[in-house]
């Protein structure tokens, strides 16, 4: 078991002061901090290996290509894809969702078709489908969420029908941390013949995910929420479905041959990666995968669960603090409100104490509305956090109550 201090020591940005106070970073659901091994991998790439991939015959191009494709292999292994070709590099989970919406769904949907999502989705799993609905005449259905933040499975099941073509759901809610039973949901969706999409942006940094076991058709990953750099993510797709899907962006590298009479697409996954990709980002993400494997999901998940339990206990003991959507299965998110203190003020006062949290609607306005709120405070945990961080959070919340409560 690696000690708390040694994990935190791997993250240079964590060791600084904000206005003379030790930084307490509790905003990992927005983006995780980066371990030194990730920063070093990117620096090493730019210092030594920088070149374009897949075409040059020179040494640097070969090194860059190898680094980029190695990262693809690493992601495939981590996520349990059946082969590396099932991994498409994109800018992030948002782009992955848009790729599925535009390249897979849009040409196939017609008026009368339905897309099913849940009430707890991030805007990135709502808006791409609204666009497709607008384009095709399909309609969007929404499964309800219980008061405790868990998904209402009866509502979900009742909305599945022969008209349901796509079912798209968050693996983990970004706003409240609920872990959805995606395997069960995909199995139900498959019974009506729907194609399943899982938004895994908030999952992979926290727990073991197995694409083949979940048996969804598409799975979206965000690099920067799993210790990797920003601007890189992956869409994992079932190989056969990817084969059937037409490209969504044209350009270099996504073609085998081009003439004005006929252009032939490159094979999967390259036909979805038009233009020079984020090579450094992919290599950084590969390093992040190695970091996760080194620490181990067992350590990550159990530590976060302990912190979550401790955090809930501490926050609940503060008079005036109410937890929001604190479901049993939760991936390290403490969503809360403070009586008589607006989340924005809580955020400012906490920042003055060095405590970084996120306040607002968390790009999940329909979920906020579900709970009758316009915004919440969100402290989100990662493997580098400690119980002392939670104590600092609690102390700063008490200060906010003193000032404004």
């Amino acid at each position, binding site marked *: 078991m690696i000690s708390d201090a040694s994990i935190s020591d791997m993250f240079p940005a964590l060791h600084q002061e904000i206005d003379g106070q030790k930084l307490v970073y509790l905003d990992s659901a927005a983006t995780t901090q980066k371990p030194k091994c990730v920063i070093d991998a990117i620096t090493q790439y730019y210092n030594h290996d920088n070149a374009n991939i897949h075409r040059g015959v020179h040494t640097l191009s070969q090194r860059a290509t190898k680094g980029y494709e190695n990262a693809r292999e690493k992601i495939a292994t981590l996520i349990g894809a059946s082969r590396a070709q099932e991994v498409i590099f994109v800018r992030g989970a948002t782009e992955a969702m848009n790729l599925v919406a535009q390249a897979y769904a849009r040409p196939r949907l017609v008026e009368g078709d339905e897309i099913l999502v849940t009430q707890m989705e991030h805007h990135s799993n709502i808006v791409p489908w609204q666009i497709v609905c607008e384009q095709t005449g399909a309609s969007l259905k929404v499964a309800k969420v219980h008061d405790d933040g868990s998904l209402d499975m009866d509502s979900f099941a009742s909305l599945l029908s022969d008209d349901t073509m796509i079912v798209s759901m968050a693996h983990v809610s970004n706003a409240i941390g609920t872990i959805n039973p995606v395997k069960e949901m995909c199995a139900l969706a498959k019974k009506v013949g729907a194609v399943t999409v899982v938004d895994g942006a908030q999952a992979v940094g926290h727990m073991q995910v197995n694409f083949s076991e979940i048996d969804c058709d598409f799975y979206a990953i965000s690099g920067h929420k799993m210790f990797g750099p920003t601007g890189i993510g992956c869409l994992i797709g079932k190989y056969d479905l990817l084969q059937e899907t037409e490209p969504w962006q044209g350009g270099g590298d996504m073609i085998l041959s081009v003439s004005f009479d006929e252009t032939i697409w490159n094979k999967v996954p390259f036909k979805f990666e038009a233009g020079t990709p984020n090579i450094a980002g992919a290599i950084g993400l590969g390093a992040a995968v190695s970091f996760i494997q080194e620490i181990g999901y067992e350590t990550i998940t159990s530590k976060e669960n302990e912190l979550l339990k401790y955090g809930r206990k501490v926050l609940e003991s503060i008079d005036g603090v109410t937890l929001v959507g604190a479901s049993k299965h939760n991936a390290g998110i403490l969503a809360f409100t403070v009586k008589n203190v*607006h989340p924005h003020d809580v955020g400012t006062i906490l920042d003055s104490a060095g405590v970084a949290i996120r306040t607002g609607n968390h790009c999940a306005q329909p979920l906020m509305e579900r709970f009758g709120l*316009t915004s919440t405070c969100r402290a989100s945990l990662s493997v580098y956090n400690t119980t002392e961080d939670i104590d600092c959070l609690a102390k700063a919340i008490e200060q906010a109550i003193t000032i404004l409560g």
Partner: protein
Amino acid sequence: MSELRELYLEMVTDHAKNPRNRGKASPSDLLGTGHNPLCGDKIVVTVSVDGDVITDVKFDGEGCAISIASADLMAEVLVGKSFKEARELFSSFHELVTNDKSTIEVPRKLAVFTGVREFPMRVKCATLAWHTVIAALDNKKEACTE
């Protein structure tokens, strides 16, 4: 920490906790709706006028301490002012909260927001009601801090 104390001065927290001008101006000759997409706050400002003079300002809506206190104190300051004076006050107030070298003079009820200039993320909270009232005076009805 001293910056935090400058932001949440007693007059600010007092007006945030107990706003005096929440409600609807009667008659509501002019109305503006303001929206801060950053935090989702919405505010409705109603204004009574007599010719070119503002005779009453009221606001309604939810918001943080800075935006509520700012709306409440703005309402107090604007009563009896002409449209032109109201615009000039907003211009001065805007400079006060955005320019950290500014020495501009404003009424005491607005000067309490000087501390906002140390918190750039909060400028929109302090100016939401002002954007909204100016939109009302301009008959634009809707204001957005973005």
